Every structure is written in C-alpha cells, then in structure tokens.
C-alpha cells in the first residue's frame, strides 16, 4: 500500500517540476542605441581635428595647411623633423626641444609620483596636525588655480628674489604643481583598496620596514605610482600656459613652446602638423603602454583567486575578491 503510494508519488507530475517557458520578447533599448550613436558622434567631434591634422601631415611636397589633400602620399614633412639635410628642415630645433621636453617630463613625472605617494600616505596616517582639512584644500588649490596664474606668480616671485626664471628650476616646479593633486587623488584611491594587514603579516613574519616596503607595499601600489608618473609626465610634456611665462629664451624650448610660438616665428607648413601629430602619438603610445601593463597585472593578480573560486564553486563569493578582472569575466 505504502509502496504503491510512494511509487505513484514519484511518477506523478509535481507542479514545481513543470518548466514554464514564457517567450519574453527582448525589447530593443532604443535609448541605448540612440545614446550609443551619440557617443560615436561625440568621439568624432573629439578626435576629428587630430585626425585631420595627422592626414594633412602626410601630403606631398606641395602640401598646404588645408584640404584637399595634395598628392602624393609621402613622409616628406615628417622627414623635415628628423633629417637636417631636407628643405625647410627643423630637425635641429626638434631634436633639442624633444630632448629638453623628454627630460623635463621624466623628472616631473618622478617628482609628481613621489609627492603623490608621500602626501597621500601622510593623509592616510590621519595627519594629526588638525590642519588636514586645510592641507587638503591647499592640494586642491593646486588643481583649481588657472595655469596662467601659476606661471605669472612664479615669474613675479623669481623677479622678486632677483633670479631669472628658467626651465629646470622654475617651469619644472610650476608644472609639477598641477600634477600633484591628480597623483594625490590617484594614490588615495589606491590606498583605499589597500589592505594594511598584509604589511602587518609581513612584519610578523620578520620582515623589516624596508623589506616590507619593497616586497609588499611597492608591488601592490606600483600601478598607482605609475599612473601618478603618467600624470606628471603628460602634463609637463604638453604644458604651454605655464612654461611660456617661465622660460628665458636661452635654453632649448620644450616642444609645446616650439609648437605654440611657431605661427608667429616661422612659416606655417605641414611639418607643424607632423610635429603636433608626432607629440600626440607619443602620449597616446604611453597611455597604451600603461593600460597594457595594468591589464596584465590585474589578470596576473586575480588568477589564483579565480582558480580558487572555480574549484570551490564560488560559494563564499571569492570571485568578488578577484576584483575588476573577475567582474569583467
């Protein structure tokens, strides 16, 4: 009796076993499509001047500053930047300016990274100076002061103390000022996700302060430092408004000054476009390098966590701990 009932119960269709498949017609999100289209138009608006400029830099020898494109396609105008033996050459200026700009930007990037690191660290240690709100506003002041005024103020200050403003002492300092708040904010974001217990664990295992810093802290925050460096580098690499007031004319001009004073100092030819496109390409390449580095690092860092998550069926939400890369998957 009981057995037959059990058998009947086993074979009977339970309502919860019935899979009901409703056909849900996925509605097209017209808002998304419209906004996506707008986004493409926006990118066009953002990039079109640079693209036009780059195209025009590849014109033939009769090239002009505007369309139509004067054939043939050639690298002649780019050659004038690097080859001192061409007509209309600016190779000497470009190489001097390029070197000047490169070194200035590298040093600025380094200083910005160091200050971003130390200032954000000081903030995290809850600077008990009671003036940390004031200090925060001072750093933000560096962000909000118009470039032009920083240049003007520094020029007046150096005049006041009886010195001639120059690139390495004055312009570099003024350029770093704008980089500091960006680096500071980047590093604050990095520290916010940083677990200080790891440092403690390292110390418990007998590591000294220097070893802890080198082997534990630094590998975890170096992308932030790299990002800070990038801010310092690119802001200096591209700065015009500050540097124009802080150079004295005896030193090789940085590239932006060379480009900016070009229209008033020499004939405007398509090699100006080549120079502009070239400096832009350097920056874009640098961003690409940083992105690739960060992506690789994220993948590398989250791999063990993801494996563990897969092995344990992710019951404890380990996948979340994998962070960005795990979520992206």
């Amino acid at each position, binding site marked *: 009796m009981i057995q037959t009932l059990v058998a009947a119960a086993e074979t009977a269709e339970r309502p919860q076993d019935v899979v009901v498949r409703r056909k849900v017609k996925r509605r097209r999100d017209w808002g998304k499509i419209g906004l996506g289209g707008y986004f493409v138009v926006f990118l066009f608006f953002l990039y079109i001047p640079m693209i036009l400029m780059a195209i*025009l830099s590849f014109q033939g020898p009769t090239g002009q500053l505007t369309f139509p494109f004067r054939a043939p396609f050639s690298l002649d105008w780019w050659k004038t930047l690097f080859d001192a033996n061409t007509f209309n050459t600016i190779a000497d200026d470009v190489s001097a300016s390029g070197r000047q700009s490169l070194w200035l930007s590298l040093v600025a990037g380094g200083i910005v990274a160091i200050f971003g690191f130390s200032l954000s660290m000081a903030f995290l240690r809850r600077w*008990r100076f009671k003036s940390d709100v004031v200090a925060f506003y001072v750093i933000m002041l560096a962000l909000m002061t118009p470039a032009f005024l920083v240049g003007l103020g520094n020029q007046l200050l150096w005049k006041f103390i009886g010195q001639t403003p120059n690139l390495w002492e004055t312009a570099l300092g003024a350029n770093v000022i704008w980089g500091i708040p960006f680096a500071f904010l980047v590093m604050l974001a990095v520290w916010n996700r940083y677990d200080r217990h790891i440092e403690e664990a390292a110390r418990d295992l007998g590591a000294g302060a220097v070893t802890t810093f080198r082997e534990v802290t630094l590998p975890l925050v170096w992308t932030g430092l790299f990002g800070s460096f990038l801010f310092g580098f690119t802001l200096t690499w*591209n700065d015009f408004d500050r540097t124009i007031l802080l150079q004295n004319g005896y030193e090789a001009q940085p590239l932006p000054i060379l480009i900016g004073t070009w229209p008033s100092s020499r004939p405007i030819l398509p090699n100006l476009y080549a120079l502009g496109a070239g400096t832009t390409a350097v920056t874009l390449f640098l961003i690409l390098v940083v992105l690739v580095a960060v992506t690789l690092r994220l993948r590398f860092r989250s791999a063990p966590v993801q494996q563990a998550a897969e092995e344990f069926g992710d019951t404890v939400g380990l996948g979340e701990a994998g962070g960005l890369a795990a979520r992206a998957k």
Partner: protein
Amino acid sequence: MSSSSTPEPPGEEAALLALEEIEEAEAILEQQPPKAEAALGEGARGSRGSGWVTTALAAPGFVYIGFYLVAPLVIIILVSFWTWTDAGFQKTWTTANYSELFNDSTYWHNMLSTFETSLIAVAACLVLGFPVAYFLALKVESLRIQIALFIVALAPFWTSFLTRAIAWTFPLMGREGALNQVLIKLQIVSQPVQDFGFSTLSVRLAMIQLYILFMITPLFFSLAQVDRAALEAARDLGGNWWRTFREVILPQTMPGIVIGSIFIFVLTMGDYGTVATVGGGNITSVGTLIYSKIGAVQYPQGAASAVLLVIVLMIGVWVITRFSNLREEL
C-alpha cells in the same frame, strides 16, 4: 548637591544618583568600542607610533607647494599693490593699479566676454557631456567595454591642448578648412564663411572640445554610483523617463555636475593658450590681456588684473557650490 536646600526622599535621590551612574557607565561603554577600534587601527597601521613620520612624509610636498604655488599667489597680490617702474615694480604701496583698472573699460569688456564664453562653455559641456557620461555609466553593461570606451573618450586629456587647438584652427575651421568645404559641398553656403577661423565662435567651440572631458569624468563617476535598484524601482512604479531622470538620477549626480562645472568655469576663465591660438590675436580674453600687460613689463597692472580675475573666479565657484553640499557628499 541640591539635596540640602530641597528636601527629597532619600530613596528617590539614591535612585537618581544610580540612574546618573548608569548613564555615565553607558556613555563610557558606548565610547569604548570606537576607542578600542582606533587602538586596533593604530596597531594595524604599524610603525607609526608618533606623528613625526607622517610630518616627514607631508612636509616636503607642502614646502614644495608653498614655494611654487602659495608664495607665487601671495606675490601676485603684493605686486598688485606696488608701484610700476620701467624695470618692473618697486615696493611702494599704492592702490593706483586698481583704480586704473576699475576705469579701464577694455578690461571689463574683456572680463564680461570671457565670462560669457565661460557660461556658454559650462552649459554646453554639461548638455553635450551628460549623454556621453550617462551612456558610459548606465547603458554599457560589460565592465570591460565600459572601461575601454571611457579610456577612448578620455585619452585626448593627456594629449597637448595646444596641438589640438592648432588642429582645430587651420584644417577644420579655417577659411579653406574642412568645415567650410563640407558646407559648400552640401550647398548650405556658396562662399566660404570667413567667420569660422579666428572667431569668437571658433574659440568657444574649441574650448568646449578641449575641456569637455573635465565635465564628463566627474559626471561619469557620479552616474556610475547611481543606485540601479532605485532606477528599476522608479520604472516599476510607473515613473516615465523624465520623472526618473529628474527625481532619481539628477539629485544623485549633482556633485558630479557641480565639480565638472567648477572645472570648466575655472579652466575657461583662466585660459590663455586656446584664445591665443584659436583666436589668432583677433580675440582677446582676460588671459590674453594679462599676458600682453606682462609682455609690456607692466607687472603691477597685470597682477592687479589677475587678482580681480581670481576674485571673480572665487565668486563663481562659490555660486556653483551652492547647488550641492559637496563636503557632505564627498
């Protein structure tokens, strides 16, 4: 305490005292956990112990900022009250620079037109940038694609403003630039519109194009924090698009809007490079005016103009911050 003057039953007084004690104990108990936590936190932070490490970390940065930012700003204010000489300035106090400036109609005309340009730029960046940030933050589901698109939109920030300004000037907006050629091809105009290049319109468009990233970035970050559940709830409750936008999205993105507006306002008011390049000398702004004064070695006059510009900037920023309680939101 007052027990001698007002006779009360001793039992009641004791009860009151006991209550007080209990309250005190509770207060102490309440205080304890945060204290303990703080102590633990300090322990976790490790080697700090005293504030000198922190001070050592902070001091070089602030000395640097003091020398290259605060001192220069102070000296601008000082010089604006000093007397002009052929060599620059000398330390004789005067207010002549300001009284001269207040009667200088060219300066105020420029201030007004720069302010107008700024307002237009803020409004345009907000209107044009909001859909971009909205699309990136709320319409793109895959995080990877979101980051990729955001970086594509943000990349020009790291490239040269000046180069982009020059790219804007000749190839695009010039008399024979692409825009005029397209307009002629489409037979919208028959003659090239001279007005595009080196014009106020051109300067304003270029500024929007150059600075809009400073609006999109804060907008993106505040939109990304909008509670998606609240959006769905609003939709489920029958709120149409406009009401959802106005009552759910807008209040939550106000900090982003305010920060972006401050950025654009300050950047456009204090701009020199864009106006000089795209305007090609035809267009003046407060920035180019100050620059020409410095070029003419009129330092005190230039400094006074700069101080007035900063005052206008501060008033503007203050007005913008009225729209949202930033300190609370951050």
